[in-house]
């Protein structure tokens, strides 16, 4: 039975400045909210609070959307769920290791061809060579790359790499799938096929966590929505109401920086 329990996740990004003293000193980097900075006793910046008590619970068939502004912590939260970033506090529990599609450019040998990357990704995910070969043709078909599978992956376009990545990740019927925004890098035809595959996946009672800015994608795929703002949970609920609140707030906040500038 698939489940995710992520409770009270806190992540601090350390700010490292070589071996010498912190060259950011006491000045907050431009554009960063000072309340998220972590300072030592003398006031020098030592870290950034990327996540401050974020969590979610998912049962089988749940499809969570993560929304929030750029830099709010959506991808960081996905990376914690994926087992890539150990949280400073909090625990992630899942029914099985998740499959992640977080960064399109990572997790590929760019000089190796597509077929070889299918094998490497499959092995890294814990499958045997035999099981990977059994799914090889399905992955190749779904990617739609045809002769480009024999080319080094580094020579493929972002969209083509994304197709291959998505095809590999979903071929093994993962129970828990974590996706970042870049799904929308595909063309219309691929987005349609990807959405069909997501439907198949969801009907098999898997769990999806999807970070996205795309309202139509979220409304189509997700039944739950988590709005992360400045590393904290701002609102949780059904996608429609959370998206409405989010969009209202964004419109309202868009005017604030101008007022600030005017006041200075």
């Amino acid at each position, binding site marked *: 039975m698939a489940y995710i329990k992520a409770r009270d996740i806190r992540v601090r*990004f*350390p700010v*490292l400045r*070589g*071996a010498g003293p912190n060259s950011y000193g006491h000045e907050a980097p431009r554009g960063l909210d000072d309340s998220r900075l972590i300072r030592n006793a003398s006031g020098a910046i030592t870290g950034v609070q990327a996540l401050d008590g974020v969590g979610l619970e998912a049962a089988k068939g749940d499809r969570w959307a993560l929304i929030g502004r750029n830099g709010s912590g959506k991808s960081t939260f996905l*990376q*914690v769920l*994926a*087992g*890539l*970033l*150990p*949280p*400073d*506090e*909090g*625990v*992630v*529990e*899942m*029914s*099985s*290791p*998740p499959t*992640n599609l*977080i*960064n399109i*450019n*990572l*997790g*590929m*040998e760019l*000089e*190796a061809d597509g077929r*070889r990357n299918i*094998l*490497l*990704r499959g*092995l*890294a*995910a*814990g*499958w*045997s*060579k035999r*099981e990977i070969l059994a799914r090889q043709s399905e992955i190749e078909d779904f990617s739609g790359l045809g002769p480009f599978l024999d080319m080094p992956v580094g020579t493929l376009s972002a969209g083509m790499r994304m197709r291959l990545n998505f095809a590999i990740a979903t071929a*093994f019927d993962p*129970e828990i799938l974590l996706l970042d925004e870049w799904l929308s890098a595909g063309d219309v035809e691929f987005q349609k096929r990807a959405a069909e595959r997501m439907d198949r996946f969801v009907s098999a009672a898997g769990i999806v966590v999807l970070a996205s800015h795309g309202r139509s994608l979220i409304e189509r795929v997700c039944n739950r929505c988590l709005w992360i703002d400045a590393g904290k949970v701002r609102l949780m609920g059904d996608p429609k109401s959370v998206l409405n609140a989010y969009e209202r707030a964004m419109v309202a906040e868009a005017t604030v920086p101008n007022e600030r500038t005017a006041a200075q």
Partner: protein
Amino acid sequence: MSVIWKEHSAGAAPEPFVFSARSHAGVAGMIADIAGGLRAARVWRAFAWEETKRRYRRSALGLLWIVIGYVAFVGAIVLFFNNFNLSSSDQIRSAEHFASYVGLGYAAFSLISSNIQDGAVAFTGSAAWIKSVSLPYSVYAFKNVTRTLTPFALQVASWLVFALAIGHEFKPVALISLAGVAIIALNGVAMQIFFGFVGARFRDLEHMLSTILRVLLFMTPILYVYDATTGFARTLATANPVTHFVEIFRAPLMGAAPTALSWTMVAASTVVLWGAAILAGALLRRRLPYLV
């Protein structure tokens, strides 16, 4: 448990996955990481071979360059350090002996030094994978050690051809060198882990190690014969642990068991290196994704 990589077994229910700061920190976390890395052998074997291919991809001679480079280096050393003197049969025999000494010593030294040099970037060089696939970090150490064994095997094979051609005498003690290679590889893993973690945090390490390696090349008896050295040079060579790692591989193939001193130095170094590797992992493992 913190070991993330799981082999899928058909039919069996997948094991739950728990991930927290605690599961990643401390000595227990590091030991679990190494155990998990060992189980993922098929992953690092495939990645090691991929990297070997990447280095020689689109080169016409490919892996043959390893053999060419090795033969050229050893040949040049033998010619220059033997004063081009090959007129009598005694001198030829002595040159053949010296060639084996240099050939085997250089192969072993290269294996050790590439594990030190690659160790400094063991994790930073795999940053793309560390940030996208949750594998035990020791996988990248095992992968690098496996990769360094390919050139070593080709060099030793080149020497074997030479040894058979000159009718080199193999004694039963030669089998000890197999254990010697295994011990060097075991320490290679420890060095990759230790230097990998420290090098991710302190980026000066990579440059420091290449400086040290240049000195080690002369402190290790591979370009000269240990028994022929005297005084301070001999003291330095004796104090250098690399000398003894080279010796446990080279001496058996040259017909003599390694000395008790060599075994002691190797045993002590193994304990120190593994202790350092586990300690570095215990302290830095949780922060590694931020450091690479």
